[in-house]
């Protein structure tokens, strides 16, 4: 207790010489001065706000000297060979600091996640593909199977109202399945299931300060949590779309066969499907695969306020992902329609 004021007066009164500074920077304790360095948040690390030395005698120094010294110390930090210092002196444009989370929308998260894909751990993507893909398979197939049956049933009834001809139902159904339906419905289901899962997981890590714990272990949450989910989702969504489309085709064909007596040969006729349809479908599924984890991870990373906040984040994730799917579907559909219409 009595030593404490003594110690403080010693540090503030004694003008620190320049000499100890390089030692500080070069020694093992040098990881400490690098701690506050990235508050400048510039990628080059050229303007760190302070090191341990200005912290101690901060009031006795003029700003110019201070910045000069900070520059010098950052040079030292950069030339040092310690790994932790190199990473911190050159922060990625992501969420290294909690302060970085205060800015930016989903696009910021997208940029950070894309940048982080180069630093992912091997095996993380496979784990997430299992988590996001395999576990959603039954759900997606169930829903698309039911929708396939309903659509053919409703379309058949309406077609019979106008012309008693059921031969175009199959080709038209296959075309709309390829163009839009398989991709959009799969994505809407994934937005619900995967989106809610990602947001709940990352959000509860955030409110229990586990993200900060990751940062303390010099593990970037974006690299370890967001990027693997993003890559896995982009890889898995087209595959799930194809599988779900196949199931919808199967149930649709069976409905046609049993309810309207449409033969397999008449129903399974892909004459309306062209390259533009295939491109539109694939483009959509990739875009949806990108949008869903970004919207959900964004909602999760920006969670605040306890378990109530996790619930809100989940809501925002599901709504944001679903809206993104619908808006992207509209935009890509209109784009392909205009381009293909212009070409043909």
């Amino acid at each position: 207790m009595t030593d404490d004021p003594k110690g403080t007066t010693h540090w503030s009164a004694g003008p620190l010489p320049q000499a100890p500074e390089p030692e500080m920077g070069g020694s093992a304790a040098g990881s400490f001065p690098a701690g506050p360095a990235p508050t400048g948040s510039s990628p080059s690390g050229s303007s760190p706000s302070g090191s341990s030395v200005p912290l101690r005698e901060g009031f006795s120094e003029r700003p110019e000297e201070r910045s000069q010294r900070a520059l010098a110390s950052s040079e030292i930090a950069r030339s040092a060979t310690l790994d932790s210092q190199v990473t911190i002196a050159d922060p990625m444009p992501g969420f290294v600091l909690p302060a970085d989370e205060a800015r930016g929308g989903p696009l910021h998260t997208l940029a950070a996640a894309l940048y982080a894909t180069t630093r992912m751990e091997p095996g993380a993507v496979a784990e997430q593909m299992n988590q996001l893909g395999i576990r959603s398979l039954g759900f997606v197939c169930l829903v698309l199977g039911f929708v396939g049956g309903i659509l053919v049933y409703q379309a058949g009834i309406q077609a019979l109202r106008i012309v008693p001809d059921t031969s175009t139902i199959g080709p038209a159904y296959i075309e709309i399945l390829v163009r839009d339906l398989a991709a959009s419905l799969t994505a809407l289901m994934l937005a619900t299931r995967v989106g809610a899962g990602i947001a709940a997981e990352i959000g509860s890590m955030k409110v229990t300060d586990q993200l900060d714990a990751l940062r303390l272990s010099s593990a970037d949450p974006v690299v370890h949590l967001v990027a693997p989910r993003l890559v896995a989702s982009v890889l898995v969504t087209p595959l799930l779309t194809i599988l779900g489309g196949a199931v919808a085709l199967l149930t649709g064909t069976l409905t046609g066969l049993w309810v309207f007596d449409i033969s397999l040969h008449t129903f399974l006729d892909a004459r309306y499907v062209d390259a533009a349809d295939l491109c539109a479908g694939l483009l959509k599924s990739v875009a949806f695969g990108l949008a869903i984890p970004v919207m959900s991870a964004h909602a999760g990373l920006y969670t605040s306020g306890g378990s109530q906040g996790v619930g809100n984040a989940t809501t925002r994730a599901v709504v944001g992902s679903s809206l993104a799917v619908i808006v992207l579907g509209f935009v890509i559909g209109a784009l392909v329609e205009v381009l293909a219409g212009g070409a043909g």
Partner: protein
Amino acid sequence: MEFVGGIAVVLLQALRATLRRSLDVEQLREGLIRLGLHSLPVVFGTALFVGGIMVIQSAPLMTRYGAHSLLGWGAGFGILREIGPILTGLMISGRVGSNNTAELGTLQVTEQINGLRALAIDPADYLVAPRVLSILVTTVVGTLLSMAVALVGAALTGQALLGVHPITFWNGLTGGMLSWGDVAHGMVKAFVFGLVIAGTSTAYGLRAKGGAPGVGRAVNESVVLSAVAIFVTDALISFASRGN
């Protein structure tokens, strides 16, 4: 079975509280505003784009047959009978249902529902019935309004993309092949979806256990099961109604 039973218990509790007029009116009013009124922008935004998507996707069929006068019928049929109720249901399940589960789950894991019982307040009157009624009303009214918005979106896209005049669209819509029966069909679906969403989200919220992660799990399960139940009941209603 547990799923169906949970929904049934919640819905019966809500029905009983409503019939006895013992439900908390203040909570009901707040629920209608918070769960209902505040979801309308999301529902409208979705509906507008969905109407556009319907037209974009039916464009090749329409141009192939030169059947522009049928555009209103095609879009109207799809929106009124299937897409309107399903998409409104999915959006409400995502926004309102998950919120409801999260709130009730938080109340449950923090023992606040037992706290209500200790104060001699019946959770069925105070929490369950107002929420179920709010979600039901929101789904039905939201579907009705979103149908109108989706038709406007379809008409606008039809004019921009295919050059179909809105009056042609309107004539196709009212040309006799669609009737109020189709609207009623959509509204029946909306009513059932409202019951499904309200029942599932409330039941799963009340059954949450295991702290904050348990709430997350409950939200996830409730949203997924609501979506599945929406599609399954939609198929059942469609097949049962035989096109009427």
